[in-house]
């Protein structure tokens, strides 16, 4: 068994052996699907009251993902806790004493957390989509409609990337308190404001979540972005890569 395989196994044991994993991921699934369903149900019942413009640019797919704006916070919490628990408990010293190759340590953590959040993200987006469309009824779309499958798969990728972004940032910040205090308000409020207010939109729309959500939209007019859905996701992936590399540099340089 290679060194990397062993460290992967060890990191998997770490992830599966704490309650916070199941709680945060379950919260992400439940909140995203539940809130999405609620919004879809409300939209369906008030569809006829909407303006003509709103009806014309109505994005049924995107609407069924509305719960993700809150559900992503649980994904971020997962990403923060996977890393910050090492620091807040002092486990990091044991971990690095066992695996002094810090790069291997970090990337194995990412390789364990990544597929896990991707699977959870995909489950979330598919469930949210089908439940949402069922509730939207005649206003809904099918998975076979143009761009819809891409948006649903993209929703899963989005959830995975946001969690990994949090992983990278927490490796930089090292403290759970700091990581939560920065990431939560940022993704819940700040980035949404920056991305929609006219004055800051030009820059704000390149923030990770603002760019990433583009992949979930099927009706381009609804978001009005200068880049396409895949480009949007790519921008987000670049942010995530940058956060992880920053985390790697900090981990490598600083004393544990």
């Amino acid at each position, binding site marked *: 068994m290679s060194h990397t395989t*062993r460290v992967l196994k060890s990191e998997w044991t770490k992830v599966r*052996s*704490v309650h916070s994993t199941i709680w945060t991921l379950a919260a992400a699934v439940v909140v995203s699907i539940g809130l999405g369903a609620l919004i879809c149900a409300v939209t369906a019942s008030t569809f006829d009251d909407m303006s003509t413009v709103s009806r014309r640019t109505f994005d049924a797919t995107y609407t069924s993902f509305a719960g993700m704006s809150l559900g992503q916070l649980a994904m971020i919490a997962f990403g923060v806790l996977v890393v910050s628990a090492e620091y807040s408990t*002092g486990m990091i010293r*044991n971990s690095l*004493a066992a695996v002094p*190759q810090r790069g291997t340590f970090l990337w194995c953590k990412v390789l364990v957390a990544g597929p896990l959040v991707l699977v959870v993200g995909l489950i979330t987006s598919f469930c949210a989509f089908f439940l949402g469309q069922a509730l939207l009824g005649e206003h809904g779309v099918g998975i076979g409609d143009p761009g819809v499958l891409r948006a649903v798969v993209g929703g899963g990728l989005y959830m995975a990337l946001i969690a990994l972004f949090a992983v990278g940032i927490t490796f930089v910040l090292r403290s759970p308190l700091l990581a939560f205090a920065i990431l939560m308000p940022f993704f819940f409020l700040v980035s949404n404001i920056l991305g929609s207010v006219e004055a800051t939109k030009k820059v704000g729309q390149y923030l990770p979540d603002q760019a990433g959500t583009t992949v979930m939209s099927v009706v381009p007019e609804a978001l009005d972005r200068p880049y396409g859905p895949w480009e949007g996701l790519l921008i987000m992936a670049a942010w995530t890569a940058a956060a992880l590399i920053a985390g790697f540099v900090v981990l490598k340089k600083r*004393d*544990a």
Partner: protein
Amino acid sequence: MIELRDLTKRYGDKTAVDGLSFTVRPGTVTGFLGPNGAGKSTTMRMVLGLDAPTRGDVRIEGKHYGELKEPLNSIGALLEAKGVHGGRSAYNHLLCMAQSNGIPERRVGEVLEMVGLHDVARKRPKGFSLGMGQRLGIASALLGDPRILMFDEPVNGLDPEGIHWIRTLMQHLAREGRTVFVSSHLMSEMAQTAEHLIVIGQGKLLADTSMSQFIAENSRTHVRVRTPEPQRLLDVLTTEGLRPAAGAQGALEVDGGDAARIGELAAAHRIVLHELSPQRASLEEAFMRLTAQSVEYHGHAPGGVQAPPEGAQVAPGAPQPPPEGPQAPPGGTQAPPGAPQAPPPGGQQAPPPGDPQGPPPEGPGWGEDWQRRRRR
């Protein structure tokens, strides 16, 4: 074997570890002694590659820590008691450590059995007592059955039974030919466990010697004699070339004297003796003298003597701690002339140094916060 060469760690302009060079050898328990803040933990973290040295290096069996692919099979360490996720069961904590180093899973059960935690293996360490936490840390150090073991303050927070257990374990591990490196700020603890001593203060090496040599060099032995006729005995001893001095409560103290000879002299001159006892300054006092120059903080302890740490015991043969309140050190141990003396508590005037005939200094009682004292 752990080899340190010119190991130095600076934090800003503060030097935590200052040019340490020494070798920790297999087959014995090596005590790593120093007051709080002397740099012991920093040194140990550098041994494990957790902190990067500013200068110098450490080698484990000739290799840098980062070169070890399965470090737990070479060196096992217990750092501060924490270092465990409170929500991950003891079993899973050890399992993830084991897996990262290719250690078979059955070993997890073995070490849990070894440290007596098998009953709580599936429990979360959040509810563990300090002692159980230490045992879990030791279990993880033993996982890879390593040739080198390093324990940072392993007896902290343990009850007497736990202390005894760790002591026996360390000696057992050393007898198996392993390298055992253990830090403590309690000389009395080391005296019972370690055969070799490395003493540091303010990050500098103060002593690297065998325990027996340290005892011989640093403890002043004398004989205490009590008699109803002190003047006669004084004359007799002085004519025999001995150097008696007035001790506490009317006793005479004969530096470097031989109890048998003093007894025979007294008998020959028909002098009644009420007490004739060889005294040895405690190692704690020797350690205090050695590190007094280099202790980081200078603290006063107006509240008198603190209770000795739980479970701490005085080395056999050493004077027992006074029951309460600051008193003259038991056994009338005076600091040798010119040696730094601990300032008395309560701001009393210390006797002028360099006066060997003066009354014994009102030094702090055993266990007082001496480690935070600096003589300038």
